[in-house]
């Protein structure tokens, strides 16, 4: 489903379904080509709203304290912009295109993600 959705965005709009890049536009000066962007983001939000209505358990519960979640958000925001992508852009779209940059990025964030999860899992 994620792969098909990303492919649909490529076929219709020629865009990479990289969520960090798409979310990042929210804090950038508006670009000219806004309609697809706004619609895609709206689709994501709609998916969340509908899921909450029909299958609230599927959304899950927080795994960490609010402070840790906020710190995590700051790191994810800064890191994805500096590294030009996240799980979707580098992970799904980048690896499929055999992008060497994405391969390096995925190997890096999987490694630091696992190390962090292991450490936090032991101390908390």
């Amino acid at each position, binding site marked *: *489903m*994620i792969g*098909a*959705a*990303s492919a649909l*965005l*490529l*076929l*219709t*709009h020629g865009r*990479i379904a990289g*969520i*960090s890049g798409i*979310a*990042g536009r*929210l*804090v950038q000066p508006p670009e000219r080509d806004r*309609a*697809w962007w706004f*619609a*895609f983001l709206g*689709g*994501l*939000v*709609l*998916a*969340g709203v509908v*899921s*909450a209505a029909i299958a609230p358990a*599927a*959304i*899950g519960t927080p795994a*960490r304290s*609010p402070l*840790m979640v906020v710190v*995590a*958000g*700051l*790191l994810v*925001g800064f890191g994805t*912009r*500096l*590294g*030009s992508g996240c*799980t*979707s852009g*580098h992970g*799904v779209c980048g690896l*499929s295109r055999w*992008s*060497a940059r994405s391969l390096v*990025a995925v190997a*890096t*964030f*999987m*490694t630091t*993600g696992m190390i*962090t999860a*292991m450490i*936090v899992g032991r101390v908390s």
Partner: protein
Amino acid sequence: MRAANPGTRRRTASIALAGIAGALFGVGLVVSGMTRPTRVIGFLDPLGLWDPALAFVMAGAALVYAVAFRTIRRHREQPWFDAQFHVPARRDIDSRLVIGAAIFGVGWGLGGLCPGPGIVAGAAGSTSAIAFVVAMLVGMYAHRRIAARPRSPSQS
């Protein structure tokens, strides 16, 4: 370029399909368990109760996209609603890429959310995910102010 009437219909179709892509993407994240921080952390922490299922989610999505990407690029000069494909062309591996990915990984392992699932879970009403997304946007804004210097001016 095009007559006004078919133009507006085309524009409606263009927006609708982007919305469908977003909704499908979001539902895919929910169905696969990516919006559940406990599951993501369970996947990232092999020392705990390791749950490797999410690796198959990502591999599956990448496989579907790999086939689709090749097919689309082979058969089409341009996407349906744009004059060109906007596919990254960079090949250089620089310190920003590695450091950025490393920082992102730490945040992912810490909170169990990455950007897409954060937005979807936030829209579903999870206050934790909303806090995550707000912090993420602050982080993105901070990057724009601090680290975005040598970007091409056309990026705007």
